[in-house]
């Protein structure tokens, strides 16, 4: 990395810019998280100084660095079902996700999807639950676990936890398609490309690749968008409704932490010790 940088800097007029726009353009209050995503040394020291100085010390798990996470308010989604469909569609459009017809459902690829409440929260009883829970559409996606079993299982580090921000990322170039991670993920968050996905991608986003057959994929917390100072596509699609909030869980001043501090939230299968970074308000 450094070798590369030096090579570039030898060219006259070359420099490294922190982000396409300066942090001012970043609308997120959790911009410390976004700044560190850019990874330049200077920013990395500056930005956390603002947010994390206070964080260290009074949290139970002695958080270190940035841990990106999300709060999903299922009440909002329930009031307005279009929000959920919009979030799913936004992810599909942003990431060139194929959409297979019903007869090819076994090939299905999904990063974020709608599922009944009792499927998403299998540990929660819906017996005698409030009527609204019964037909409650919930939403599932990768939890970007702090202690991810998929990463533990992967024999090639094709899936790994990004230390800078806690995103559990995939390197499609390296994945051998053993699908060990799919067996290991207790949330069914991963999909395999059983065939070439391209014929089933409806529209291409020119700034993102597709995948090839034989590799696993899942939600990437929109790492590519964060780098440009944008929110995740699904979060952006519900902008202004409070249905989805994204940011640094370790930063007590972030928007996502404010929601977490105020509301009662639940995680999926917390007993498994995976420490999900996606929280839900029911």
């Amino acid at each position, binding site marked *: 990395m450094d070798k590369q940088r030096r*090579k570039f800097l030898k060219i006259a007029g070359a420099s490294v810019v922190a982000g396409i726009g300066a942090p001012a353009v970043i609308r997120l209050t959790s911009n410390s998280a976004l700044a560190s995503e850019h990874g330049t040394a200077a920013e990395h020291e500056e930005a956390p100084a603002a947010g994390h100085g206070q964080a260290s010390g009074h949290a139970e798990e002695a958080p270190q660095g940035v841990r990106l996470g999300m709060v999903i308010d299922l009440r909002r989604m329930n009031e307005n079902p279009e929000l959920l469909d919009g979030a799913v569609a936004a992810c599909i459009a942003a990431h060139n996700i194929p959409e297979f017809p019903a007869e090819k459902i076994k090939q299905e690829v999904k990063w974020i999807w709608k599922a009944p409440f009792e499927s998403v929260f299998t540990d929660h009883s819906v017996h005698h639950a409030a009527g609204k829970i019964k037909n409650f559409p919930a939403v599932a996606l990768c939890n970007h676990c702090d202690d991810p079993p998929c990463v533990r299982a992967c024999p090639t580090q094709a899936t790994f936890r990004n230390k800078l921000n806690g995103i559990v*990322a995939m390197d499609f170039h390296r994945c051998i398609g053993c699908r060990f991670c799919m067996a290991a993920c207790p949330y069914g968050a991963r999909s395999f490309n059983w065939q070439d996905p391209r014929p089933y991608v409806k529209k291409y*986003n020119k700034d993102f690749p597709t995948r090839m057959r034989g590799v696993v994929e899942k939600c990437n917390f929109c790492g590519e968008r964060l*780098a440009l100072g944008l929110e995740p596509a699904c979060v952006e699609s519900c902008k202004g409704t409070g249905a989805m909030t994204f940011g640094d869980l370790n930063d007590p001043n972030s928007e996502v932490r404010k929601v977490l501090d105020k509301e009662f939230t639940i995680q999926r299968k917390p007993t498994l010790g995976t420490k999900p970074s996606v929280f839900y308000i029911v």
Partner: protein
Amino acid sequence: MYNKGTIIPGLILFVLFVTFPVWFNGFTTAGDLPKPELPPGGEKQCVMPAEYMRANHMQLLNEWRDNVLRDGNREILEIDGKKYSKGLQTACMQCHSRKEKFCDSCHTYAAVKPYCWDCHLTPKETASKEAIH
């Protein structure tokens, strides 16, 4: 016992046979050196000098790949006032917008098949199913 009449033509045939790749190319393709198309938009500046890119673009792409995906280092490069975000689709294809006339011209000649395009989209492919956003 040794028949000159068959040994010598036999030797000649043998030599011709083992040197087949050399002269065959001479007759056919060696003349057509590949001519990769310069950026249709007329851009003159690349992230690195042309000679460097010609020899080392694959290493550069690998480094970018590891920077972006593995090290979480998605810094934007600014070179002579132009900004590049590391990536085949987000940087290279911005100028070299016709992969078929640029990348393929040498890759076909050298008979290499990089697997980049199994996943990465060329502008032509994107245009075939353009997203409206």
